[in-house]
């Protein structure tokens, strides 16, 4: 990882400051790339201010939703994007967490606090992740994808078969998030609070996953994708690492599922377990650029903003046609993802080879 800086400028020196301190942890950046990251972060952090100034307060809801989906897309990426074992049933993990919250509220005690239901639900996602991973990781390529796809179908159908517990087609209510933080009562009834309740976990998970992805673990996962036998020949237990990638993925999937449950206030098969949801997660990661963590974040924001704010000009159904068509075009013509392309353009611009993970 070299950072032979030759162009100066204040941007570059800030970026270099970052590289010296954190580059080895999260990957190195050049000036434009650094500016993009910091700029995006700033835009997100102060979103309540500019949305209100511009009179587009409704956008805050979309950005909150995009933050949740970004968590899901990143979580998918660390497992599927990095190892090349492409899961088509990841919504089962977030859905499992969401349903755990809903069932706890509906069947155990409606007054269970968020700080109790949330960790249990994330744990449930982890258990489901392992239940799927351990047997299915024996298969490769489309066969692994097929099993995960089928796992998604099974969970979807089970919500109907056990409608007495799950509420069937129409699901169950979970209500809003309410908890106490440092003596203050936090509730997501307030749009601004809700935005930060969704954004902050997203940023924390992004940093954590970037840190892991730029570590030995990330390197080994990518190597598994490229050549699993070579990794075994290096004395590394690939099965252990593949299962570990499911662990790394399940936990944020669980967090995302819980947040989504409280965002919608209701958990149902349509919003959580339908195959479309798994495909949406993949679409976001692929549109952004697989195996980069940052790409899926960009993909999630792009897809959600398109879906909620832009493509609606085609009508409620038409927006889905348009969205899937966009995804299909990206699949065919820009397999590596739009944000990866952007990243490389910025990289060339600064004429520094760095930041990319591969």
């Amino acid at each position, binding site marked *: 990882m070299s950072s032979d800086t030759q162009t100066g400028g204040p941007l570059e020196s800030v970026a270099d400051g970052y590289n010296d301190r954190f580059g080895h942890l999260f990957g190195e950046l050049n000036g434009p790339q650094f500016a993009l990251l910091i700029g995006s972060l700033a835009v997100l952090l102060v979103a309540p201010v500019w949305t209100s100034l511009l009179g587009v307060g409704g956008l805050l809801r979309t950005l909150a939703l995009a933050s949740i989906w970004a968590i899901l897309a990143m979580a998918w990426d660390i497992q599927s994007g990095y190892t090349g074992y492409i899961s088509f049933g990841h919504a089962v993990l977030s859905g499992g967490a969401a349903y755990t919250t809903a069932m706890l509220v509906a069947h155990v005690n409606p007054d269970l606090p968020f700080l109790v239901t949330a960790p249990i639900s994330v744990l449930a996602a982890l258990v489901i992740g392992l239940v799927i991973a351990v047997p299915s990781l024996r298969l490769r390529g489309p066969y692994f994808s097929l099993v995960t796809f089928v796992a998604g179908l099974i969970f979807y159908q089970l919500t109907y078969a056990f409608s007495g517990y799950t509420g069937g087609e129409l699901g169950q209510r979970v209500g809003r998030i309410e908890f106490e933080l440092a003596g203050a009562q936090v509730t997501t009834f307030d749009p601004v609070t809700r935005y930060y309740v969704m954004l902050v976990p997203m940023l924390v998970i992004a940093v954590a996953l970037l840190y892991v992805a730029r570590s030995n*673990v990330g390197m080994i996962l990518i190597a598994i994708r490229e050549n699993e036998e070579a990794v075994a*020949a290096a*004395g*590394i*237990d690939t099965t252990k690492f593949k299962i570990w990638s499911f662990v790394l993925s399940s936990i944020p999937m669980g967090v995302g599922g819980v947040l989504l449950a409280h965002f919608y206030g209701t958990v149902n098969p349509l919003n959580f377990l339908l195959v479309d949801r798994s495909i949406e997660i993949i679409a976001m990661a692929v549109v952004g650029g697989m195996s980069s963590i940052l790409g899926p974040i960009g993909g999630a924001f792009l897809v959600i903003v398109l879906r909620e704010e832009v493509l609606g000009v085609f009508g409620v159904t038409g927006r889905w046609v348009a969205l899937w068509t966009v995804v299909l075009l990206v699949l065919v013509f820009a397999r590596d993802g739009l944000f990866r392309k952007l990243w490389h353009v910025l990289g060339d611009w600064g004429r520094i080879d760095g930041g990319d993970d*591969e």
Partner: protein
Amino acid sequence: MSFFELDGLTKRFGGLVAVDALSMSVDRGEIVGLIGPNGSGKSTVFNCTMGRYTVSDGSIHFDGREITDAKTHEVVEHGLARVSQESNPIDAMSVGANIKLFTLPNSVTSLRGGASEKEIFRYAARLDLENKLHEQPDELPHADVRRLEVAKALATEPELLLLDEPFAGMNQQEIDGLVEKFEELRDEGVTMIVVDHNMGGLMRLVDRVVVIHNGTKIAAGDPEEIAENEQVRRAYLGSSEAM
């Protein structure tokens, strides 16, 4: 018990017996040649040893431990490494990263372990790749790719190195260079089993030769003895391969 020992090793694929009750042993510090015509089961022996194939019968011991049913990574952890017939570097990673991969600890919680840049430089330098650390494997000439395979295997700090046709596709000059490297390794105490068709390069290197044909051992001894062995000649002629 010897340093490395195969005892009645047998591998069947369906009805086909690829290796048939093969026994052989290698002492610490030796370089043993394993030769035989195409399809005689040489690579299968390596694949069984490395845990890529499950062994049908018999046992494999290494350094006092049974590794018959061990998985590949366990075998490597015990101090065995193999240079495969086919080069398989990870093209998405630089030469340096390819070597580093082979130094990473087998631990999901070790985020920043593995060799330092200095150590990687040293591993590369052992095979004269130190100036190519930042190149991508698919940009390297063939001989360098083969050398990278050896460098990767050495980065696991093996005590026994299995070399599966290390000279494949190289010209004489390149072979000579590589043989020199292996001789240096022997001086450092690395034990080796070498499979190759090129008897010339091999004969200079090895202390002892084991010949297998159709999965069974047909001869063993000094390189000179083997070169004279009538049965070995017939086996090779039968498969229309020149020595």
